[in-house]
């Protein structure tokens, strides 16, 4: 805005072409004012918009992430799956937001594909479900995993962490957990039956 105004006054004043519409001369790209979401500072909104416009994972990597997320948190009677809750997009955002995640995630995905190729001559997403689970079982239990899988274990721990956080910070996750707060309330103490259950009282 400001810049355009200055240019405009230069155009009109110093070039003396007041009859020509200044926009034609300056041809500034139309600036869409960045919407600043409530509660964000401008610098934060700019940063978020920039991150949102970038892509980090390749389509193949995202596909692998999606398969893994849904192995980690599949749909059950109580709630949907991680991908239904939008976890892959959350992981994509976090990789851009906190670049420390980038190499462990990208490298971990590459490790997984290389392991899949060694065993089955295919990428992880192309394996059958039992084949995928065979690999996952080797890296999903940190205390039992064989030492040669330690990098895979570290990667799977990270994926488990990101998936859990990504899932349980959505409406679907809240409903699954039974979190009922974040709303105007009147705190009157622990419900009577809960006090009884724990043998406690307010004296």
């Amino acid at each position, binding site marked *: 805005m400001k810049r355009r105004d200055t240019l405009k006054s230069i155009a009109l004043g110093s070039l003396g072409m007041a009859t020509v519409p200044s926009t034609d001369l300056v041809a500034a790209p139309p600036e869409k004012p960045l919407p600043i979401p409530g509660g964000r500072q401008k610098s934060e909104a700019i940063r978020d918009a920039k991150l949102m416009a970038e892509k980090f994972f390749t389509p193949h990597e995202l596909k692998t992430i999606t398969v893994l997320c849904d192995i980690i948190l599949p749909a059950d009677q109580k709630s949907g799956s991680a991908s239904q809750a939008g976890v892959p997009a959350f992981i994509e955002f976090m990789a851009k937001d906190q670049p420390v995640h980038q190499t462990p995630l990208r490298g971990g995905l590459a490790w997984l594909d290389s392991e899949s190729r060694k065993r089955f001559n295919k990428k992880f997403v192309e394996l059958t479900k039992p084949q995928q689970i065979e690999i996952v079982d080797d890296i999903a239990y940190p205390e039992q995993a064989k030492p040669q899988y330690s990098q895979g274990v570290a990667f799977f721990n990270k994926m488990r962490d990101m998936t859990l956080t990504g899932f349980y910070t959505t409406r679907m996750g809240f409903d699954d*957990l039974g979190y009922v707060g974040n709303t105007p309330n009147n705190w009157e103490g622990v419900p009577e039956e809960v006090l009884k259950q724990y043998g406690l009282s307010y004296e």
Partner: protein
Amino acid sequence: MSNFHIQETPEVFDVIIVGSGAGGGMAAYQLSKAGAKVCLLEAGGYYDPADPKYITQLKFPWESPRRGASTTRPFGDFDAAWGGWQLEGEPYSAAPGTEFHWFRSRMLGGRTNHWGRISLRFGPDDFRRGTLTGIGDDWPITYDDVAPYYDKVDKLIGIFGSKEGLRNEPDGHFLPAPKPRLHELMLKKAGKNLGIPVIPSRLSILTKKINDERGQCFYCSQCGRACQVYADFSSSSCLCKPAVKTGNTRLINGAMVREVLTDQKTGLCTGVSYVDTATLQERTVRGKIVVLAASSCESARLLLNSKSARFPNGLANSSGVIGKYLNDSTGASRSAFIPALMNRKRYNEDGVGGMHVYTPWWLDNKKLDFPRGYHIEYGGGMGMPMYGYGMGIHGMNGKYAYTDGKSLPSGGYGSRLKEDARRFYGAYVGMAGRGEPIPLESNYCEIDPNNVDKYGIPTLRFHYKWSENEVKQAQHMQDTFEEMIHEMGGIALGNKPGKEQNYGLEAPGKIIHEIGTVRMGSDPKKSALNSFMQGHDVKNLFVVDAAPFVTQGDKNVTWTILAMSMRTSDYIIDQVKQKNL
């Protein structure tokens, strides 16, 4: 156009106040109510937690693309702090081998928009620890001098708590305290068995309405996001805005004060110069009295930077004491898993924004190997899941059998993992000790000879090391935490920090209770300010943040900042009336 011309506001204000946090907000309120023409200069932007532009309260984690992670704000996306331990373009440094972390918020109300609202008045002993223990110094005033102001602050701002009759934890004018949550009842019971008091906390939150400007708490547990009905205390909502409303306070945001100006003949302050942060224009404001409230370290920085021929060591610093005796609370913490709370019944347990119970200092230091006490703050409960929820579950889930009696190795995936997320929810407690340090002359801040900030203002360099006293106190905290956890039937998480880790003692500055850098005292050779926080060398200069404080007790200092700022404001009014100012 005339970028290099310094613009001067023609008006001469009765009082110029620098900074709109706890200290500055109270002074603006009290002085403008009394009819003084006040100019309130605030480096940060305007802020109002009731304006949708700024509201973060009641937002859900999915309204943040990072689910509230602390990437850009140290306490997460929804926290009401525009600032942190690092500010873009406003650096500071620490001398090699020493460490200090300086938290600043650049906004109307400063750090009171997101502070913990823990509002503890000092007790009688807290003003005279030097005499009582032979280590450290006394304040030049006593509890009786401040008590009437604590009372007034309680009534003006509102605080909940309970009458306990503890001698060094004096009762105030309390609104009803919220009932303890489930884990807090467990803590209370454990404390009772161990002889450790666990009593209702004292927070500046309105559990009852006190006036028409402010609403009543609706228990969302989010005071850190600042309350849109103003049911928690923020200087911005409860002091600055009412001050502006009197018509006597002119608030200027985006005014980063560079230095205090003085008349070289009279040696009195004549005003301040500041940088308009939006245009980088240099401006001056003139006033008859200058009140600094930029927060402890910033007020010291301002005075040290206000050098002139008459004040070569910085303003009001003939004693050379400014910058020295910097001290922050000690802090150490531990958390625990409470198996009895697994698979607990769900209900809305948000409560107020903070703990409902705490442990005041309960022991006698004469029988201990460290000279000062600490209190314990507690956390836990079925809070709102945010970024981080469920992380590290592979360190937990293998250790405890499922409800059907089955166990699985740690880690895993699938529907059992969902079961883990459910069963462990709300089954943790946290405890954090906050203790009194011994202020040392050797812990100080000074002007860094080599660095300036983006406004060209010379920055601070810190020198800070904990002494054995604080380390031993942290060790005692860790032992207490384990006792409490054990008594609750809990399992402490992580390893107990040992000697090599200073028993988990947090680095200086991390507890954000820094005080002491512009000491008050009765001896002008050893202090910069008198007992009314007025310059010994410059009588129309006052400091009303925590910089003048001699010690901080184990009581988070904000309630004392408010009381002391009100006291100094009343003194200013009185001195003006008596024509001494």
